[in-house]
Structures are given as C-alpha cells and as structure tokens.
C-alpha cells in the first residue's frame, strides 16, 4: 500500500512537468497577447512591460525560468492584475470554490444515494420511475437555466434568499442548489445501476437466505459495493466541482477560481492560466489517488500493488 502510494506520487512529477510545458507553450501560441488592447499602448510602455515580465528574453530562457520558479510554486504576478501574485489569487479564490463545491457534493450525495437505493430496491415501480424521471430532468436542465429560474422563483418572487453575491450563509443556498442538481441526478443513476448489479449477486442471496431483514441486507451488505461506481465518479467529480464552475460563479457572482481560469485564458494572462492549470492538475491527481485508496476499503477483492 505504501509503495503504491509512493509510486503514484512519484508519477505526479513527470505528469505535472508535461502539463506545465504544454500549457506554457500553448498559451503563448494563441493569437494576441497580454498587452494587446482595444486602446493602443504606447510602444515605449509596451516594451517596458515586456521587459518587466521577461517577455523580451528568448523563449527557452523564459521557459527555464518558469520551470525553476514553478517548482517553488511561484508563478509570478498576474499580467492582468499586476499588483497580485498568481499564488495569492489562487489562495483567495480557491477556498470559495472549495466551500461551494463541498456543500454541493455533500448535498448531492445525501440526496442522490438514497434516491438511487430506493429506485433500485423498488425497481420498475412508480417510485423507481419517479426517481429516475427526476434524475433525468436534473441531468438535462443546464445550470444556466436552473440558476436563473431559482433566482426568479426563490429570490425575486418569494424573497427567501439573496439573488447573488457571496456574503452570509443564506447566500450559499441558491448556488449550492444549482451546482448540486446535476450531481444529484448523476449520483442517483449511478447508485441505482450499482445497486441493481449487486442485489443480484450470490452474497446478497445468501444474506437473504440467512433470514436477514431486507433493510439490513440493503444497508449493510449491498450498499457498500453498490456505491462503488459513485466512488470512482467522485474522484474527477470532486476535482471538477471544487475547482469551481464558471456558470454558477457568474450567475451568482461568486468570487471563485472557475471565473479566473476562463477569464485568464481570454486575457492571455500567461502566468495566471499556467498557475491555475497546474493547481487543477495536481488536485485532480490527488483526488484520483484518494479514490483508489477508498476502493480498497470498500471492496475487499481489490488489492493495490
């Protein structure tokens, strides 16, 4: 187990290096540049800015300097927000995305898993149809439709929650609901599929034959294996949801990381794009590793070596 983890962590290094290199060159290949604007910047100022950011040096020199600094997690100042370090922007925006994401995931699990279990246990009944119908709706309605609809209904008509801005606990409700819905639906469907598979297996039949109550069979024995598809889905899903959702952050004016990444790409903010991409990559790999470890806990048949 320890060697497995060690080996995986060592693999992070070449992967991150490859991602860093690709991002570094790709963002520079995009047409335009960080100092191109609708209103012309005087040539002298542009030269001075290029010098400040080392863009007047050969690309290889820029690349080596970038790698050397990246190892120390120093990506330099943002081009678009020159008074701020990339590191600082991530440190400020990430906790917001993290909070939003964690609440949304928790809600998705708390609602999605029970719905999936009920649908599986009552397969082909009205409850199953209703649950899966809801799930289908949840997957199908995009965030940019659901978000404004919730605002219109719960905020601008019923005055229950603020329509946007990240201040106070009540401001969390609408963005969390919007973000969670897609995941609720997806998790419900995964749970149902997983449970149906497990409920047909021999050990479940054995448990039932021993005369265990159905409740115990489902909750104690079947559920543990039935949620495995959900667990493997949780790895990339958590990384995605925690890194921030552009749409939800825009609709609810949430100061998270998702908006920064997209804007940085449009602005050709070289340092900010590279910094966030690398942060995201590291996060995704860590989560996938955690999922693999969780697998061994849930399914005794799996061994990591």
């Amino acid at each position: 187990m320890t060697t497995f983890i060690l080996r995986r962590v060592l693999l992070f290094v070449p992967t991150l290096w490859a991602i860093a290199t690709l991002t570094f060159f790709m963002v520079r290949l995009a047409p335009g540049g960080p100092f191109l604007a609708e209103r012309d910047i005087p040539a002298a100022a542009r030269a001075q800015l290029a010098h400040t950011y080392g863009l007047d040096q050969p690309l290889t020199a820029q690349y080596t300097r970038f790698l050397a600094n990246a190892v120390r997690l120093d990506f330099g100042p943002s081009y678009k927000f020159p008074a701020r370090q990339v590191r600082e922007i991530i440190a400020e925006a990430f906790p917001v995305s993290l909070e939003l994401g964690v609440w949304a995931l928790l809600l998705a699990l708390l609602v999605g898993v029970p719905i999936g279990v009920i649908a599986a246990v009552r397969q082909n009944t009205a409850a199953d149809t209703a649950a899966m119908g809801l799930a289908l709706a949840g997957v199908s309605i995009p965030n940019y439709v659901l978000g404004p609809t919730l605002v219109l209904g719960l905020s601008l008509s019923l005055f229950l929650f603020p329509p946007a801005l990240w201040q106070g606990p009540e401001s969390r409700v609408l963005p969390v609901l919007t973000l969670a819905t897609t995941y609720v639906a997806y998790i419900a469907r995964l749970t149902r599929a997983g449970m149906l598979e497990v409920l047909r297996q021999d050990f479940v039949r054995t448990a039932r034959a021993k005369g265990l109550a159905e409740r115990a069979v489902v909750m104690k024995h079947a559920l543990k294996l039935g949620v495995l598809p959900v667990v493997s889905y949780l790895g990339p899903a958590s990384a995605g949801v925690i890194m921030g959702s552009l749409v939800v952050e825009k609709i609810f004016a949430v100061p998270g990381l998702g908006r920064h990444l997209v804007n940085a790409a449009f602005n050709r903010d070289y340092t900010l794009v590279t910094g966030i991409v690398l942060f995201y990559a590291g996060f995704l790999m860590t989560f996938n590793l955690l999922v693999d470890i969780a697998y061994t806990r849930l399914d005794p048949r799996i061994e990591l070596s």
Partner: protein
Amino acid sequence: MMPVRAWARAALLAAVALGAGCRNTGPAAAPPAAHTAALERRYFGDSSPPSDNTFRFNNGAEPEIYDPGLAVGQPDGRVCRIMFEGLTVPDPVTLAPLPGQAERWESTPDGLTYTFHLRRGLAWTDGAPVTAGDFAWSWLRVLRPATAARYASMLYPIANAEAYNNGTLADSTQVGIRAPDDSTLVVRLSHPTPYFVFMTEFYTYLPVPRRVIERYGSQWTRPGNIVSNGPFSLVEWRQADHFTFVKSRTYWDAANVRLDKVIAYSVEDLNTSVNLYKAGAIHWTTSGYVPSQFIPYLMQFEDFQHGRYHGVYFYSVNVTRKPLDNPWVRRALNYAIDRDAIANDLLKRTRDPWGNMTPIPYAGYEHPPGLTYDPVRARECLARAGFPDGRGFPKVAILFNTSEDHRRLAEAIQAMWKQVLHIDVELSNQEWGSYLEATTTLHYDIARRSWIGDYLDPTTFLGLGVSNDGNNRTGWSNPRYDALLHAAAAEPDPVKRMRTLRDAEALLLDEGPFIPVYHYTINDLVKPYVRGIQPTALDTHDLKFVWIDHGFRRNAPAVATAGNQGQ
C-alpha cells in the same frame, strides 16, 4: 483666462442639451396621485431606502489595477476617483470642472501656461499635507518610461511630456510641470489645449502619495498600505467581489460628504447585475450593466436612465487591401447602410443612429453633415469604382469579436450591402484576443470597432485618423488630414480651431476609413432614493455629491396630499 471660461460655459450648454431626455428624479416631480402601490409600478423592483448610509453599486468588471497613474478603463477609473481627488472635479451634470484640490486657476492669454492654486490645509488620509509637489511628482511618475503607464498620452498636452515619456528626452526638469511652492502648480503646455483644465479631472492626473509608493512598491494600493486624498478611503478589497470605502475624515470638504460608506461590487454578469438591483442589494447598476434586450422593457420605469454617451460604434476598413483601397468603394459601402433601420428595428431605439465620427455636441463645434442612407448614390459610387451593379466585386469579410449583438448587426449590414449594392460579404467572428491581433496587424477586410472618448473635445475621436496612430488600424494615411489636425493643435483661437477640426471630420467621413453606425448611450438603473447620479456624457460621477434620501417613501404621499389640496 478667456478661453477657459468660454469653454466651460459652452460645455455646460452642451451638457444641458445632452441632459434633455433623461429622467426626473425625486418626489417633487411625481404625479399628485402617487401612492405606495403606484410607487411599486413606477420603479423597477424594491424602492425602499436602506436604513444605513451605505451606497452600494455594481462597478462592473474587476478592475485590473486601481493605481490612478496606471489605471485604464471605466471600472478602474471609478475606483480611483472614489479615493482620490484631482485639481478639479466634474460637475455632476455638466462635467464642467469645479474646484477640487485647487481652489482657483488661471491661464495666460496665449493659452500655454496654467497656474493652479491649491487649497490650504489639504491632507492625505495619514495626515500628511497634500502639496503642489505631490502633483508634480505624480504626473512625472506617469510620464517616466519605467512606469509603463498605458494612459501616459493623456498628459501629452504638457510641454515635453511626450518626449520624456517615449525616452527621447531624459531630463525630467524640462517637462512643463513646476511647483514653485507648496500650494502653486505651474503647467506649461506644448500647444493651446482649451480643454486642459477639464483634463485635470481625469484619473491619470490624480495625485498619488510618494512616500507610500516608495515604501510598498506595487503593493501600495492594498488596504492597509494605501493613503489617499479624496472623499473616501479604501478599507477592504476582495478581488472579483467588492471594494469597501469609508468616508475620509481628512478630506477638506468632509462636512459636505453625505455617505458614510460605499461598497463597489464587481459583478460581471449583466443579468446578475439587474437581479441584484431589483432585489435592492445594489442601488445603481452603472451604465452597461443592464442586458441590451431588457432596455426596451426597462424604459417604462422612472428609475431607468437613458442618455447620450461619448462613444461611437463603427466599422473600420482596411484600406491596404483591394478593393477597399478605393475611396469610391468605401463611399458605396457607407451610403448603403440604413442607420435608421438599424437603430429602430434592430436596436429598438436603445442606441441612436449616427453618421458622424464625433458622437455628441461640443461647445463651438458644428458637426459636418453625417453620412446618410442613399442607395442610388451608393450604386453610383460602386460603378465609379469599377464594379457596376456589384459585378466583379471580390469577396470581403466583416470581422467582429464573438457576441450576439455584433453578429446581428453584421448580418443586417451584410443584407443591406447585398440588397443595395448586390455584393456578397462574409461574416467572420473571433474571440477577443485573436480579434485584437487581427485588427492591430491589419489582417482583416472590414472590422467592427468602437471608441469611447476620454474628454469632451472632437480630437479624442479625430485622433484615430492620424497616420500611423496606434489606434488608426486601417492603414489609412492622408497628409491633408494630418495637416488639418496639426493646424488645429497649434491654433490659439478656439473658433478657428473648431472650424479646422470640422473640416478634418468632413474629410474623414468622405474618405471613409471609418464607417460610423450608431453612437453609444448611457443605460443604467438608479434607485429613486439615490440623489446625485445623472447620466453624463463620459459616464463619470463624483460620489462626493451622492446621497441617500431616507425620506423618499415618506415624501411621496405628502406630495399627493399637497396636490389634492391644491384642487
């Protein structure tokens, strides 16, 4: 002295002309039968004043940098103006310069030297005095090449400023800025600039605290470090979220500042901005932060403001490419655009049709006749260019940055050119960075562009046509045009100057490197209990003059009673 006063008076007249068509504020203008329920229908969303004295508004996109000398753009400039005050401040309606840190000023008859006299007892928020030397240092800082200030050209009317800024002059003492004593600032200009006093309102001209900048470097604008001289001081900043300002105790006119606190949110999404306004979470959307498709609906509400904006939407023609190098082709394209149809049918009167490059009335300036829709003449021009009935006209493309609004307009113009000139044009959209690259390097045929003027003078637009100007981006170069602008710059007589500029604009319109389509408008929502925010031509507002009328709801029925008694 004379030119300054004449200019200010004329600016006032112009602004009054502009103000026609904006809303009435205040209960005094309310119809006598107003009561609470009707109040709700007259205003968009919640109209009850907040219990505190905090003004909340949406400042729009997150400012890139709010160091006044380095700032570029409306949201950045607005944050700077809340904290800092220049020599002059804009009148809330006319934008004419009012005394700010300077209590008076005078100029020599040749219009080349301006002397500003600072008030006594001015202080920074840390208690240190604000001196004329602070202004001199701040302006030279903007011009110093190492500062790389993107808006340094705003200071170019000052003698030797341009040479010092682009590095051809190393000696800063030769720049025309001098502070003979702590309360006198003497500015020598390179050419007569009738709007120079007005320019001192602009954020690039704001004073910055030398000691703080030398101590903290680029981090000096952080809350905790920052020291300012304006009506409010910064206490909190959360990127992409909000700025919080509180009333400054050291500001010279603090007794007349009526807000205790200002919160400027950075909400990019237009729908979100309007939702927050409707719910009463913000009191002002600022112009541009209302979705364009909502405007026709919002026009019925009294808290919606609509006015002229100092900006123009135009098509830029790359004259280095065939057949667009032929002025007759450009004239044909020009005359074939039905601007009224675009404004009425496509834009639903949210923008006004405009066939000139300079979008608003200026003091003493008579616009040359604008371009009009004339299909017959358009076809004649095209035939004269060698393409009778559009035969043999090569394929050209209209480039725009990705946006539904730009696409719809491009489609309308594509259809007009097809219908009138029988020529086919393609549409091509690119995301912002690629679009900027294509327009600056002349890799396009015809491109959608826009320009917002910085000061109330035609030159802020006419400068685009000067040969090799960084904002020209058409390849168009005309020695006669350059000579006209040059002559206007050297002209001490304001009347002759404006006449020369008019000739220049006429030439520019006739030659057609730019095809104006409409002029921009101010469209914002302001709560009826907020006083002191009117649409202004430059969309600038000094929050010093803004206050919250807490008696707003109570006043409304009182007016009704008075009206009934009168009957």
